[in-house]
């Protein structure tokens, strides 16, 4: 059981505190309710670029990292479709420095042209490193616009076109800050060696004086229902052919989220998952295969991706994936396997919650979903999934008309 307390400041900042005296450290997580889905389609990648800019100094502090390092702290951040998340760990005696730093950059950034110029280059190098200079690196860039036609999930967090990054100017950066970075658009979680009273007092002292801001309202167009199968074939000079299949699913707080999560675990949770057992070990069609949920807040995707063994026909590989998924409808062996993935989920939750950083990130995200209690209830939600619910979800989502496929064909000549 993870005990936590919550409070809100007058400016709308929500704060969650979980005390864990067994560590000398404190984790501080600040989630801003802004992600790449909030970007203008003509200027994608801004939310992530912005994450980089957040380390370039703020109104009263010319450099974020050095003062934190000076008190023994360490930090990082990530951006995804939905959120921008900043986190640090710090020896507890120096927690106030964390408050000083984080509140100052919420107050106002030092919008410097030099910093913008440098970080634009860094982000372009990041794009090259992650997506262009890796075999199969561009598959995910092609997958999103295949599956989404309307919703902003159609572009990747790093941006759909590096020209957008190159063209970003300081005015756009400023306006992005003031319409998304604000106490009333953020959630602060503190976990570790900190009591509620101190957390409350320091939150009020440092974040309290920051004024509420007007947040750009979110009017996202829902993705229309997909009505026919989509297939994209790409040819690349890679060692082996790969297959990517995605199906649209419901939102993160939809009623069947944990059912879908359990389905991906039945398929690919560990070495004993069905896809691995049947298609890698058994039929030897794939050298590796995986299945997972995007877990996006708006309706997301189930992704199955695998690399084919040499000489395997992609059509046959594709059919075998569908066969394994359909096999989940049958009662055979499913009871034991459901118990297995439930045990594994429980155990991985216990392990994840041994880290104060994970606890802080989870508390913030669950608060954003409006259900902070999930930190303690997720295992039950997952345990409550029945085979009937699995069958229902399979029927609802795993239809060919709801599916997009990339056949990523290797053009390499055999030796």
């Amino acid at each position, binding site marked *: 059981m993870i005990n936590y307390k919550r409070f809100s400041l007058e400016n709308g900042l929500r704060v969650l505190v979980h005390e864990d005296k067994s560590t000398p450290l404190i984790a501080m997580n600040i989630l801003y309710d802004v992600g790449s889905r909030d970007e203008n389609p003509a200027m994608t990648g801004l939310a992530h670029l912005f994450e980089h800019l957040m380390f370039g100094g703020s109104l009263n502090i010319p450099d974020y990292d050095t003062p934190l*390092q000076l*008190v023994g702290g360490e930090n990082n951040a990530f951006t995804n479709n939905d959120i921008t998340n900043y986190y640090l760990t710090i*020896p507890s005696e120096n927690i106030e420095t964390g408050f000083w730093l984080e509140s100052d950059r919420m107050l106002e950034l030092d919008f410097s042209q030099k910093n913008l110029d440098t970080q634009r280059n860094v982000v372009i190098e990041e794009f090259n490193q992650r997506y262009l*200079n890796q075999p199969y690196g561009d598959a995910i860039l092609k997958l999103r616009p295949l599956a989404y036609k309307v919703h902003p999930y159609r572009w990747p967090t790093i941006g759909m076109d590096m020209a957008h990054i190159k063209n970003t100017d300081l005015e756009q950066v400023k306006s992005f800050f003031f319409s998304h970075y604000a106490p009333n658009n953020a959630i602060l979680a503190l976990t570790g060696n900190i009591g509620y009273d101190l957390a409350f007092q320091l939150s009020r002292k440092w974040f309290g004086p920051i004024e509420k801001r007007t947040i750009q309202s979110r009017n996202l167009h829902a993705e229309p229902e997909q009505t026919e199968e989509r297939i994209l074939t790409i040819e690349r000079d890679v060692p082996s052919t790969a297959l990517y299949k995605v199906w649209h699913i419901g939102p993160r707080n939809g009623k069947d989220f944990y059912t879908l999560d359990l389905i991906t675990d039945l398929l690919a949770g560990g070495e004993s998952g069905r896809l691995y057992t049947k298609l890698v070990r058994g039929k030897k069609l794939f050298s590796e295969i995986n299945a997972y949920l995007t877990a996006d807040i708006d309706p997301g995707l189930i992704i199955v991706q695998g*690399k084919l063994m040499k000489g395997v026909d992609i059509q046959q590989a594709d059919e075998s994936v569908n066969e394994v998924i359909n096999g989940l409808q049958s009662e055979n062996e499913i009871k034991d396997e459901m118990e*297995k993935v439930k045990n594994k989920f429980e155990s991985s939750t216990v392990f994840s919650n*041994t880290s104060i950083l994970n606890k802080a990130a989870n508390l913030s995200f669950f608060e954003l979903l409006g259900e902070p209690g999930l930190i303690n209830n997720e295992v039950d939600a997952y345990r409550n999934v029945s085979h009937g619910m699995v069958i229902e979800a399979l029927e609802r989502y795993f239809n060919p008309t709801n599916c997009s496929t990339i056949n990523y064909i290797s053009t390499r000549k055999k030796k």
Partner: protein
Amino acid sequence: MMNNLQRIRPPVFPVEKVVIPEAKSFRLNNGVPVYLIEAGTEDIMRLEFIFKAGQVKEYLPLLASTCNMMLSEGSQNYSSEELNRSLDYYGVFLNQTAEKDSAGIVLFFLNKHIEKVLELSREILFRPVFPEAELNSLMKKRLHWHMVNREKVQNLAIDQFFESLFGKNHPYGYQIREQDFENITPSLLSDFHTKYYTPENMAVIISGKIHNKTAELLNSYIGNIGSNENNNEASVNFINGEKLKKVHINKSGTVQNAIRIGSATINKKHPDYPGLKILDSILGGYFGSRLMKNIREEKGYTYSISSSISSLDIAGYKVISTEVGQKNYQKAIDEIYSEIMLLQNVPVKKEEMAVVRNYMSGEMVRMFDGPFALAESFRSAWEFGLDNSYYYRLAEKIKTIDPDEIIELARTYYNIDDLYEITVGSE
């Protein structure tokens, strides 16, 4: 409203002196040493079995890693599927690792399953049967993974780096070729296993909220395992680096070139090692390091650049790693050398020393926070015959090292003529 708060910087408190819990140790009936580290709040344990069965022991490429990976592919009493299903059913996380010097397994589990975990561990470690069908399928998969990995400039670079440093013929150094995947047979694996996965070659490291029957259960499952042979064949204990210091591997169509610069050096057993660790941090060991500040934060040439220093049994090595676009990659290399030369010639200023001292003190707190970190830190000293006094020496050095000593270390250990420079990408 804003004016009510003077945004005055809070005071900097020195990071609390790191306190490291001592491991308790005892021996199983068959002499295997066991180390217990009590920590954490949850009823979970981390159980590591470690053997001197790493690459350095192999007489054929891939032998050590394949032997380790095949441990869970079928045993006297379980098929590979049964083993994996059983581990998953009990919510156990199993990591199999084969490194340059050592190999073994680590299991993470809820305490209530300790008995099952020990039973399965015994199967995995001491009763594997190396079935031919599973071996063939594993080698095919590994060949695929290998081919994908060899597409990545960073992998080509690090493989060449180790070859240059340790030599084409040393297990630390040789590169894997596609035909190596055809040479491994069940009997070779079985032979390697019999020789090196033995009580004489192993230790057990346990951390977490330790189950009160741990010692008793370990003895009943592992304590009666005997050894067939006694093997103390010495490994090749000297290294012979390649003569050529600069190697460029041409790979067309890349948008970034990979750079690895470094050399073999002292390992943890050497008294200068703590100082070198600090020097390495200043150079490229953390986000505020000089390489990061200069090459990423100032010039924007790369998404990331770092340096690190690592210890192996018979040597250590240090390496600077980055990937840089074609346009800037020569400039990045020049900057790397000029940062090294700066450290050899100009004393580090007091302010920067304070940042690195405090950052590293914070790192030391993180290294001993919680049962998993504690076990890893314990292991990485223990493997070199060191105990916690190594960490206390490091902590002391972090507080007391002075700029002259940094210069001295940079001159002794970063002689530019000794450094290998490996680059991969389009010319």
